[in-house]
């Protein structure tokens, strides 16, 4: 191992050591603040380390890369974990979720995301994805006092395990065709353009099936509403932002390496169309806020797939931008929901009535996040959607773009329903609740980033242009 190898692997090491340290300290003190503090310090430390440019971009012996894209997403994932830990602190105390395993699991899941981001071979990629998923299997069911937790965990675990099996088998088939695990070579050989190899085709079918589960693309989306509904709100934020971001990143690591991803156009086209239609139409009928946002996330991932199809028109850039923007928006939305659902307030649209005056900060941030999801300027959601449809039209996917835009118009209706509920009059006051300082900071920062990416996206776009020339 050279110093460069260590340099590149250090963020992973920091996270792993931090997670172990949290677990060990749990034996000494029962104070959850320590765990959160170590967790935040570790993730922020890893994020800061990722800001530096290493002397070489590859660590071949470890199978890790430190190119622009892995480091950008690594930075995003680690800060996301820090934000989640800050949000969870107050939430967990109120809900009685205690123990060192919570911050440790968040750190392990982040470790998985980071290794996925920096993988250069298919095996590391798969292991990273599964390490992350294991973290989430535990996190969604961590609220042991709620009766629904077990159900939620199982509903996430079973499809998740199935999708892992699909992914593993798909990767095995690709290996079978190409004889290499290196992402670049495997992609060149299995996405050659022209007449496809049947085994490679089967392999890609399995991989797309697995990814459809992870990204909750229709028709593999059925777990999403239940898990979004049942998991603790900060975990939902982390799941929606991190797990989806990581899966989009996985596709972004694979597809651009192929000689001609045209082979995948038709299945991805179908997935995108179905997800946009199913997600948007089902969201129209929801009366619970979290289920509504779950269906909306299905639709949002449909837009990302539109971008992935339009790779040659700048779609990869758009997909990466949207993954990050959607992550920040999710963190803001579910962070705000975590505050709003406090002290016995329910989760239906009616329960949210009048929250605008009793909890102005959380309601304001949630409203901003919803406007961003609806794609209204000047927010990150608008810039992201603009880039996606720009790429789609440029690549000639005009039908998909027009359908997507019309469905985005439909989506405005259900996002506005929540905003209306927040700012409509309520008989009597909502039960009062405190917003913890840490939560307030996370919400304000997330809202700031949503606006910043809407008004001044140039720096992020420049980075992404560098990553996808």
């Amino acid at each position, binding site marked *: 191992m050279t110093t460069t190898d260590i340099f590149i692997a250090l963020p992973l090491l920091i996270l792993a050591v931090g997670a172990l340290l949290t677990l060990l300290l749990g034996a000494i003190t029962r104070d959850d603040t320590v765990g959160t503090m170590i967790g935040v310090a570790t993730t922020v430390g890893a994020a800061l380390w990722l800001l530096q440019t290493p002397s070489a971009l590859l660590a071949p012996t470890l199978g890790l890369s430190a190119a622009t894209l892995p480091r950008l997403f690594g930075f995003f994932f680690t800060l996301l974990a820090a934000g989640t830990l800050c949000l969870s602190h107050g939430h967990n105390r109120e809900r009685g979720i205690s123990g060192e395993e919570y911050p440790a699991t968040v750190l392990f899941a982040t470790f998985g995301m980071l290794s996925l981001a920096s993988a250069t071979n298919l095996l590391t990629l798969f292991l990273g994805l599964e390490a992350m998923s294991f973290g989430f299997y535990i996190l969604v069911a961590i609220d042991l006092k709620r009766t629904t937790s077990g159900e939620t965990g199982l509903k996430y675990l079973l499809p998740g395990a199935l999708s892992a099996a699909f992914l593993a088998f798909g990767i095995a088939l690709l290996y079978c065709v190409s004889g290499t695990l290196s992402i670049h070579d495997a992609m060149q050989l299995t996405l050659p353009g022209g007449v496809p190899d049947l085994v490679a085709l089967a392999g890609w079918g399995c991989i797309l099936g697995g990814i459809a589960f992870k990204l909750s693309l229709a028709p593999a989306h059925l777990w999403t509403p239940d898990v979004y509904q049942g998991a603790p709100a900060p975990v939902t934020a982390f799941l929606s932002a991190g797990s989806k971001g990581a899966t989009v990143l996985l596709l972004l690591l694979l597809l651009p390496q192929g000689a001609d991803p045209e082979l995948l156009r038709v299945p991805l086209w179908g997935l995108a169309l179905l997800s946009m239609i199913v997600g948007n139409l089902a969201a129209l009928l929801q009366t619970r806020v979290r289920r509504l946002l779950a269906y909306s996330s299905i639709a949002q991932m449909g837009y990302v797939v539109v971008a992935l199809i339009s790779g040659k028109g700048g779609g990869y850039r758009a997909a990466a931008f949207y993954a990050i923007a959607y992550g920040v928006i999710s963190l803001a939305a579910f962070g705000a929901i975590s505050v709003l659902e406090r002290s016995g307030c329910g989760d239906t649209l009616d329960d949210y009535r009048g929250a605008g005056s009793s909890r102005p900060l959380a309601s304001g941030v949630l409203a901003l996040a919803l406007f961003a999801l609806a794609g209204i300027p000047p927010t990150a959601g608008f810039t992201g959607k603009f880039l996606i*449809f720009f790429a789609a039209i440029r690549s000639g996917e005009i039908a998909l773009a027009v359908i997507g835009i019309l469905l985005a118009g439909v989506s*405005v209706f259900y996002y506005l329903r929540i905003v*209306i509920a927040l700012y409509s009059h309520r008989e009597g006051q909502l039960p009062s609740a405190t917003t913890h300082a840490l939560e307030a900071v996370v919400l304000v920062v997330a809202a700031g980033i949503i606006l910043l990416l809407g008004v001044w996206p140039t720096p992020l*776009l420049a980075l992404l242009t560098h990553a996808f020339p």
Partner: protein
Amino acid sequence: MNEVILSLMTFLPLLGVFILLFIPSNNHGLLRGFTLLVTVLTFLVSIPLVTGFVTNADYQFLLNIPWIKAGPFKMNYNVGIDGISLWLVMLTTFIMPIAILSTWKAVDQRVKGYMACLLLLEVGMLGAFVSLDLFLFYIFWEVMLIPMYFIIGIWGGKNRIYAAVKFFIYTMVGSLLMLVAIIALYFKGMSAGVTDFSILNFFGLNLDPVTQTWMFLAFALAFAIKVPMFPLHTWLPDAHTEAPTAGSVILAAVLLKMGTYGYVRFAMPLFPNALERFTPLIATLAVVGIIYASLVAMVQEDVKKLVAYSSVAHLGFVMIGLFSLNQMGVQGGMLQMLNHGVSTGALFLIVGFIYERRHTRLITDFGGLSKQMPIFATIFMIVTFSSIGLPGTNGFVGEFLVLLGGFESKLRWYTVVASSGVILSAVYMLWMFQRVMFGKLDNPKNQNLKDLDAREIAIMLPLIFMIFFMGLYPKPFIDKMAPAIDKVIQQSRIRPAVAATIPVQPSMQMAPQSVKPAGNPAVPEGHPAVPAGKPAGHP
């Protein structure tokens, strides 16, 4: 100094919003006073635009700063005004302090949020009028939506949520399709060497007729919803009826002008062939709108709804004027936009005055008010005359020019039918006035009504002044906009060289490989191409 005036004016209200956040939310007087101060300052900042405006067709007070640059596209912060946008900007800054003053007593819940929404709305409106970059325009265009949605949805009447959602969705659907068209237009432009979203780049493009048709339809739909044109007008009466007074005033005075401004600035000069093709359709819809809205206005029982429908009719005249595509017609249309802003704004204020006193707007609840409220009656009378276009008031000049221009153009027979709208407007306005103000004062609740107080008179005086000033001496307005109108007319006429007949030029290296040209690529303006045949419909 000249370069920054527009930006200063546009973002001054935004600065006001930030300061507003730090004012305690229970100090209503300070909140209102501060907001009024901000809007008055904005108006004062905008005055140098009129005094410093050089009467020619060029864009002035230009400021162009690179903003977003990534890959193939570049957006600039590019602002400037010409004779067309100048007056709309002035109308906006002029109406805002009046709108703020009008809500002094009407809104006493969540005053802070209300004032912040009004100021944000002003940012959006001014930004949309001064943008010379399509992308920037689209952003401001959408930014207007959110505060207006909240103004209707939070501070509105009984049915506010239905009205707010209807308003939002109608406008949003139209503008999303416009976004597609903007992107597509940019790609068409790219193959002709355009490198950013500045609209000046796109005026010279000669797009093939098929592309023009689709893009015109996308733009025209977005603007038609905003105008609103028959049959897309149904959101307007709901929005107007439910909105608080200031919301209605701004909606009528400025937001509706966004639609007609969009036609003059974008849809007409960008797509001349499609314009030629769709003029009969749009003129038909405008005429139907005038007659239909007038007839519906006649049977309204709610004064506010009546005024809302009269807006639909008035905007129909504006559309006839604009689409007659001659100097008189477009001038009339532009003037009518300003007139409508002043007189319909004033009408909504008047409706607000009586609603604040009686909490009803039904015509049958009133009658004989003129005895009880003589000042109010006088002002109401003047505004009514202005709205029906009595000579001497502003409404007459605009309507007369529109009819004259329309009659001289290809729209002669449409204009003849539309002119019956002038009579109809007199019928419904005067009939309403008679039922509300004259007759017996027999409703006991009306016997103790107080006449207008000093604040209310102060609100109305500037509007009354403008009604007469624009009616008796419209020359300064017309003179300043005439060169810009000439330019728009020239751009909106079909150019003899149509791209569909021109072979691909080898010099077009800008075209990226991935773009499949739908039809033939465009050529820059002034390209010495010889048309192989004249397009259908060319005179």
